[in-house]
């Protein structure tokens, strides 16, 4: 099953109501997040990771700048890398620009949404909301299903 969550006008409406001028959103309203999934955690001491495909269906490049979720105090886009002698390491990935018509895959062993400082355990069968923030001020929130610890992909 493909889960799609589109940006809605809710944010723009909210900002207008609050008396602020809505930012000129360039692109992030055309972002689609697909196949989000994560693995269950053991307790809250170990960081979690979530995966998904972020697709830019619009005509402008979009830049993913950050994450937010009530599940974790320090969510951050990370990248795992394995060097020529087989040593794996992990570091913050910084901002990620997605060109029009392109998508970026957050998948095991590469980019991932690293969920540090979990506020509660990630329990198999539950979901949690994850908000992706873009440089144009837009936000896309996706519900991420929590699969088993040994899950290999969105299908489990």
């Amino acid at each position: 099953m493909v889960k799609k969550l589109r940006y809605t006008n809710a944010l723009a409406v909210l900002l207008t109501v609050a008396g602020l001028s809505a930012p000129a959103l360039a692109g992030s309203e055309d972002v689609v997040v697909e196949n989000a999934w994560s693995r269950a955690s053991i307790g809250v001491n170990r960081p979690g990771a979530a995966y998904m495909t972020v697709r830019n269906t619009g005509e402008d490049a979009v830049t993913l700048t950050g994450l937010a979720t009530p599940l974790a105090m320090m969510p951050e886009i990370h990248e795992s890398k394995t060097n020529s002698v087989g040593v794996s390491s992990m570091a913050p990935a910084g901002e990620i620009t997605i060109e029009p018509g392109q998508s970026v895959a957050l998948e095991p062993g590469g980019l991932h949404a690293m969920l540090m400082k979990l506020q509660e355990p990630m329990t198999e069968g539950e979901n949690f909301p994850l908000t992706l923030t873009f440089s144009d001020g837009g936000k896309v929130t996706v519900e991420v299903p929590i699969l088993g610890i040994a899950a290999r992909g969105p299908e489990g």
Partner: protein
Amino acid sequence: MQRRQLLLYGAAGAGVLGLTLFVGWWRVDGPGAPEPKGQRPLPLSAMEFRLTDHEENEVGPGNLIGRPTMVFFGFTYCPDVCPTTLSDISGWLEELGDEASEMNVVFITVDPERDTVEAMAEYVGYFHPAIRGWTGPEDQISRAVEAFRASYERVPTEGGDYTMNHTASVFLFDAKGELVTMIDYHEPREFAVPKIRRALTEDVEGAT
């Protein structure tokens, strides 16, 4: 040391050829040599370390000889690479079914500070039942990593925590404890399972 002397002698005595040898020594065994990464692991029979498995048994490389063996390093606080490796291996073992039942499968932690015997027991319990989790004192972990010519490094993260960089390859040994091959991280599944089959049959071929 012997090779060093020999090569230095050659460098002194044989002009250009000697210089080439000297440069080779410098890069391979001498001060220019990289850390012992990327080299071939020792045979299991030449390794020496003592650890504890997740069921509190005293274990070491000697326990692995007699059956084909798969070994990999990781840590249970690893959110991405390690659970992926463990679930990949679980998948390979499922695919091999009965063929793999005669195999040792060992996950050695590089983070003994957090990975106690209890932590290892809980963690490996979520994966294929053949997977054993080994931990122990830091000095023994370090000896094990060195014997495999692997490496690990503690890296502080924001917020006062730390993560571990570590060799993510899977090592395959035959029943005599000789290295058969390695499965690199990111290697496609189509390559991994045939490599494991090689480790399972290697000793039979060697005996003929």
